[in-house]
């Protein structure tokens, strides 16, 4: 029942948009903020040399994940999948995105109210949930790429 030939799917992997998309999110979402802190420290002659973990220690990665999930939901909405598949994917991406964002919210609330706050746990939670959202986003973009090629045939 698989009606696609291997050439239709693999001939233009080099032009696969999801590879560029991954690179954009990794660089703009993670590396640029980290590099900017280093640049700031250099400009102000500060000994500050934070690691990626320290930059995102309050669960800020959860916010990056939420933005990532929103962009993939937007791509899903624009696709020609059936409404059922779009709804399933969108709801699931939204739930994981919200849960990742909730790590930062919980962290903020704990710090603001003086409730027991553990930066290592906030970092671990946001890192794991970001990894999940990121993997979901990559595979969804791959599926969208495949489906786009099928509809174009």
């Amino acid at each position, binding site marked *: 029942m698989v009606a696609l030939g291997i050439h239709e799917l693999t001939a233009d992997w080099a032009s696969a948009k999801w590879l560029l998309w991954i690179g954009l999110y990794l660089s703009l979402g993670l590396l640029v903020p980290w590099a900017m802190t280093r640049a700031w420290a250099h400009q102000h002659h500060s000994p500050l040399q934070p690691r990626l973990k320290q930059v995102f220690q309050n669960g800020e990665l959860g916010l990056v994940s939420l933005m990532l999930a929103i962009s993939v939901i937007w791509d899903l909405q624009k696709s020609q999948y059936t409404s059922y598949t779009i709804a*399933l*994917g969108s709801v699931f991406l939204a739930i994981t995105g919200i849960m990742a964002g909730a790590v930062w919210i919980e962290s903020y609330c704990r710090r603001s109210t003086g409730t027991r706050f553990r930066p290592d746990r906030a970092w671990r939670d946001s890192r794991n949930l970001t990894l999940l959202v990121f*993997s979901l986003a990559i595979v969804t973009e791959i599926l969208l790429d495949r489906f786009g090629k099928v509809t174009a045939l």
Partner: protein
Amino acid sequence: MSASAPALAKQSHPALAMRLADPAATLAYVSFLFGLLLVVFPVSFPRIIVQNWQNARLTPIVILFTVSLNLALYLGVAHQRSSKPGILAAACLGSVPVFLLAGLNFLLQATIAHTLSGNIPNALARVDEEILAHTYFALIAAIFGPFLVIRLGQQFRKTDP
């Protein structure tokens, strides 16, 4: 000594409080593996999924895989934290994937019937892609869903997970 023993046992093995980050990393690896198989075997991997779906073997296989993985994850976290696994959580881990996957399978069948009944060009290839996307989302939902239910259920307890 004997009177304080149950209290001591209770104190040394508190009820397990799950966090969504616990299964998230494993789930991400499952998702990455699915994506990798899709990229490396762009024709044969989807064909295997579609053929198994047509033979009605896909849903039982996915149920078996997700329930086993969920229980392994739950017991692994319980062992790691020296906490006591809850019977309600175990029941949730066993039942939610079954209901979820069976329900989603019914919806997929309705979607496919709708797609095939319409006058859509290249309908068979579209159906294959729909099955592939559905399998992926259902697999991830069946692993993440029970832990989400458990996590939300913990909000009713007076604990600080």
